[in-house]
């Protein structure tokens, strides 16, 4: 296996993700039953998307790296880990050596777990398989063993299914989405933070009744939800901090502002192309899996994007944007400069809502807690993140900063996966799977109580 993979890897490395991914997508599409013409166009579209993403990342990297270095010189604050955002993270994950195989692996894991009635979720959200590739890619980077990385990606896909099963009833009742679950590895890992926050706040008299009005927030802070304005403002602010004493300061500041505003618009557009290319594949995969899944009750696993419109999710994340920026400045030891993923905060909080009954104040507290922990995770993990980007063939300027993103650079499962693999090798990976299996077993023994703990209504069946 390892020899085969190594040889294959050598070929893949010399061609690069922009060539290899289209070919692989084409064959994956065919195997899943997509029409050859569609699979072919899907493959090419994905290759094009990669080239586009690479261009925009180059622009962002250049602007942010320069200004970050200028800030270090001026203020002696080290914020040299650049948040390149989930669009870049997804591209890196799919473009990594693990990413090339993640779709068939995750489909296989899902079908096996369905057949053996371990999970109820059929994860048709192929796009978000990138999270599994991301975790697998991290393990690959830390162990230097591709097989380990692929196994880790498989475990990650199982973790997503578990979290989806666990939170399904809460999602279905709170968001009124019968038959849906959310196997999304940015959103679902937040649930423990919400549980802890609730537990603490319930014990503080007075505070436990606090809430915030959603409409007021949306009116006052609506601008934090508009990426290009946010990009411009952050660009100008960073530019001012970095270049106020530079030669032709005004020009540099204004250019940083418009460059970062451009990134906020262009990066998502490029990823949209990637998504467009994946549609025929994900539709073929959906039909392929549905045909093979048994006909007992199953949940359809979807992207947490469908939850984000909830007023509590929107409002709490609007307020979390300035809080996150503040945290990035005041947290001692943090080296992350937030940028592209300020737009992703709704995903972090979306699954808090059922548990907190849409209480915005509580969602903000839990979000602050998760983000604060996230800064340290991201700071520690950024060398791996950066190595994964290089592995995926993304061009980095000489002497550039390390990179991260809130999704999934801030999220805890990567610590579990990489630390165990780093310390114990294959034993660590098996242990990761073992921990998941034990937790899943406990869940299956006491499903009702676990579901209620995640925010499902207690009385209803």
């Amino acid at each position: 296996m390892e020899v085969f993979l190594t040889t294959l890897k050598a070929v893949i490395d010399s061609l690069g993700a922009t060539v290899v991914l289209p070919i692989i997508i084409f064959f994956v599409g065919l195997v899943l039953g997509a029409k050859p013409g569609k699979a072919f166009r899907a493959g090419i579209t994905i290759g094009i998307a990669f080239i586009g993403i690479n261009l925009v990342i180059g622009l962002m990297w250049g602007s942010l790296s320069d200004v970050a270095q200028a800030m270090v010189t001026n203020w002696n604050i080290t914020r040299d880990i650049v948040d390149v955002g989930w669009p870049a993270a997804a591209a890196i994950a799919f473009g990594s050596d693990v990413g090339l195989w993640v779709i068939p692996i995750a489909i296989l894991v899902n079908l096996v777990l369905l057949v053996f009635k371990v999970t109820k979720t059929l994860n048709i959200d192929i796009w978000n398989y990138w999270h599994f590739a991301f975790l697998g890619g991290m393990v690959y980077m830390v162990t230097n063993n591709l097989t380990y990385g692929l196994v880790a990606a498989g475990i990650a896909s199982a973790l997503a299914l578990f979290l989806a099963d666990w939170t399904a009833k809460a999602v279905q009742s709170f968001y009124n989405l019968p038959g849906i679950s959310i196997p999304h590895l940015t959103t679902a890992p937040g649930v423990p933070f919400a549980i802890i926050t609730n537990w603490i706040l319930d014990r503080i008299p007075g505070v436990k009744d606090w809430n915030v009005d959603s409409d007021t927030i949306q009116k006052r802070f609506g601008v934090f939800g508009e990426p290009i304005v946010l990009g411009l403002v952050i660009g100008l602010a960073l530019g001012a901090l970095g270049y106020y004493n530079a030669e032709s300061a005004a020009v540099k500041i204004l250019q940083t502002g418009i460059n970062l505003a451009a990134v906020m618009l262009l990066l998502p557009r490029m990823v949209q192309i990637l998504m467009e290319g994946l549609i025929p594949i994900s539709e073929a995969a959906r039909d392929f899996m549905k045909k093979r899944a048994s006909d007992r009750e199953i949940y359809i696993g979807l992207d947490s994007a469908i939850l984000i419109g909830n007023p509590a999710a929107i409002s709490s994340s609007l307020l979390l944007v300035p809080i996150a920026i503040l945290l990035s400045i005041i947290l001692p030891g943090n080296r992350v400069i937030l940028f592209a993923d300020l737009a992703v905060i709704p995903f972090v909080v979306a699954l808090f809502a059922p548990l907190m009954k849409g209480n915005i104040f509580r969602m903000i507290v839990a979000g602050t807690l998760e983000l604060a922990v996230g800064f340290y995770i991201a700071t520690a993990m950024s060398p791996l993140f950066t190595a994964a980007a290089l592995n995926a063939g993304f061009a980095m300027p000489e002497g550039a900063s390390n990179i991260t993103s809130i999704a999934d650079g801030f999220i805890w499962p990567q610590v579990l996966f990489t630390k165990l693999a780093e310390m114990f090798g294959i034993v660590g990976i098996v242990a990761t799977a073992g921990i998941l299996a034990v937790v899943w077993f406990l869940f299956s023994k006491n499903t009702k109580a676990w579901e209620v703990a995640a925010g499902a209504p207690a009385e209803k069946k």
Partner: protein
Amino acid sequence: MDTPKRVLVACGTGIATSTVVAKAIEESLKERGLNVMISQCKISEVRSLAGNADLIITTTPAPKDLGVPVIQTIAFLTGIGKEEVIEEIVKALES
């Protein structure tokens, strides 16, 4: 139907699920000979962009007071009940 109707598709990211919906709508409306202009956005931008649209389709809850008809659906993601939603969209566009 001279000027094409403008359809705005919104989701949490303006990228992932909204692209799936936008492509599906584009295809099935073309089959029916309906000419539409489709654009995508994040749900947080929907309020400032609603004025430029004749119909808004979202995969996630949207405000009710936008002054434009809103259809919320996940049928294009799950593949269940797709036809009914397309009928609903056609009806909304023709009225």
